């Protein structure tokens, strides 16, 4: 019996003949805090959607808590990449968070007072309690992101998947945000897709490099070699800031002019 909450075996997937994932193997252990890095189009979002059961892979097996992915999805909290959907939608911040309490199997047994209290607590934790009655479209991108994270927290997840959650948040906010995730990690397993290599490495426990194939590294070090295999095709390399084990040494990779 393994301690893995998610087990992926030989998972491959393609969209219209375009390979997104190739032979991915990954066991996510309880209590892990994984940063998933990799270039755009590297299959990061697809992998999250496969774990959530939203996409069924062309081949390979996915098990979440030992069950097929789509059956276990309610124990996963998900913060999508795009929080700009439906900005004019008539819905208040509190109602967005309450959506996390949706349970079609218990239609008549809902306790709305308790749900509201929990939703407000989640908003408070994200520093958004004062906006509870505002319309979601009136918030800024970063504020909306916090509301979506509150929505994921209120589902009381065992696993939290976040797809570029800090895209709309400033640097100070990012550091606070990752600190919050670190606190949450005491109880919840976390996978976060991120490009904030600078900030992230002092909070995470392991790194998954995703570029169609997946390489899992069991420590928080983001090495030059990893970045090269992930982001770099020689000739179009940008300088990448690196931090390993929180020691701020910067390695700037040279542009290789042809």
């Amino acid at each position, binding site marked *: 019996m393994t301690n893995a909450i998610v087990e992926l075996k030989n998972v491959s997937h393609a969209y219209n003949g375009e390979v997104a994932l190739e032979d991915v193997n990954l066991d996510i252990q309880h209590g892990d805090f994984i940063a998933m890095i990799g270039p755009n189009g590297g299959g990061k979002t697809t992998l999250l959607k496969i774990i959530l059961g939203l996409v069924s892979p062309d081949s390979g097996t996915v098990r979440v808590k030992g069950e097929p992915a789509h059956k276990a999805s309610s124990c996963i909290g998900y913060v999508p990449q795009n929080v700009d959907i439906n900005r004019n939608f008539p819905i208040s911040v509190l109602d967005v968070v309450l*959506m996390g309490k949706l349970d079609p199997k218990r239609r008549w047994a809902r306790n709305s007072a308790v749900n509201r209290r929990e939703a407000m607590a989640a908003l408070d934790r994200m520093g958004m309690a004062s906006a509870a009655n505002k319309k979601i479209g009136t918030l800024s991108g970063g504020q909306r992101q916090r509301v979506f994270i509150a929505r994921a927290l209120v589902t009381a997840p065992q696993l939290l998947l976040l797809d570029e959650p800090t895209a709309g948040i400033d640097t100070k906010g990012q550091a606070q945000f990752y600190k919050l995730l670190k606190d949450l990690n005491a109880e919840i397993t976390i996978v976060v897709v991120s490009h904030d290599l600078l900030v992230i490495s002092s909070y995470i426990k392991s790194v998954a490099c995703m570029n169609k194939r997946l390489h899992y590294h069991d420590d928080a070090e983001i090495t030059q070699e990893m970045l090269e295999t992930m982001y770099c095709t020689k000739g179009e390399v940008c300088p990448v800031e690196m931090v390993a084990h929180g020691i701020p040494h910067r390695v700037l990779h040279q542009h290789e002019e042809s």
Partner: protein
Amino acid sequence: MIEALQYDFMRHALAAGLLASVICGIMGTLVVVNRIVFLSGGIAHAAYGGIGMAFYFGWSYLLGTLGFSLAAAMVMAAVSLKAKHRADTIVGVIWAIGMALGIILIDLTPGYHVDLMSYLFGSILTVPKSDLFIMVAIGVAITFLVTYYYDDLLALSYDEEFAQIRGVSVKGLYFGMIALLAVTIVMVIQVVGLILVIALLTIPPFIVEKYAKSLLQMMVGSICLGAVFTTSGLWLSYRYDISSGASIILVAGIAFLLSILIGRIPWPSLKRRGKADVSSM
């Protein structure tokens, strides 16, 4: 208006208009937030194919129209779930084929020909009592179903992926919503006509959407606006002896333009209040 109500036909017309407002206010809100206005237009126009089949094959009107529209609606729903970016084209094709089929089948039917105009604009002034009862039944059914599935519909409309993760059977619910929409459209077309159905489905929810903070508010607001439009449109048509369906639509259309203009005026006092709100956070 009061004197007009001494006539039976005006009372029936008013009742039909108010019932249509309720039904279209609820379903129209779902149509607008799910952005399936075009799909609703497709269902409504394809229904004409069903009318043609009912006449040509001698089926009952309701059976033919409802059956055909439901089938067309399910195809459109399946396409819009499977290939979102292609859906509008397919809907457009079904829309056109449905209408053409209807017209040709009615051409081929010997004898009595239905008037295309009465299908487009309806005949709210000649609504029989039996149709009013059908509308009441639909109104009650829709209110019950939408109340029962309110949270699921809200999640589906706002964030389909999240709804699926939470265990909502998104596909079933979507097909159900479109089927309900098809039934609504077919039944209400019979009473007030295709054009008025589209107008009542889209205009009140669109105007209300900006101000509503929840789907429920949007539905209630749309019902109220729809009621105002139908009542004042009917009064205008009685007072100036003009077509009732078209009057209602024009009233709604003018309100629509006004709401856009009002939305564009840079109200100075409102802006300042908005800024104060932000800084107090």
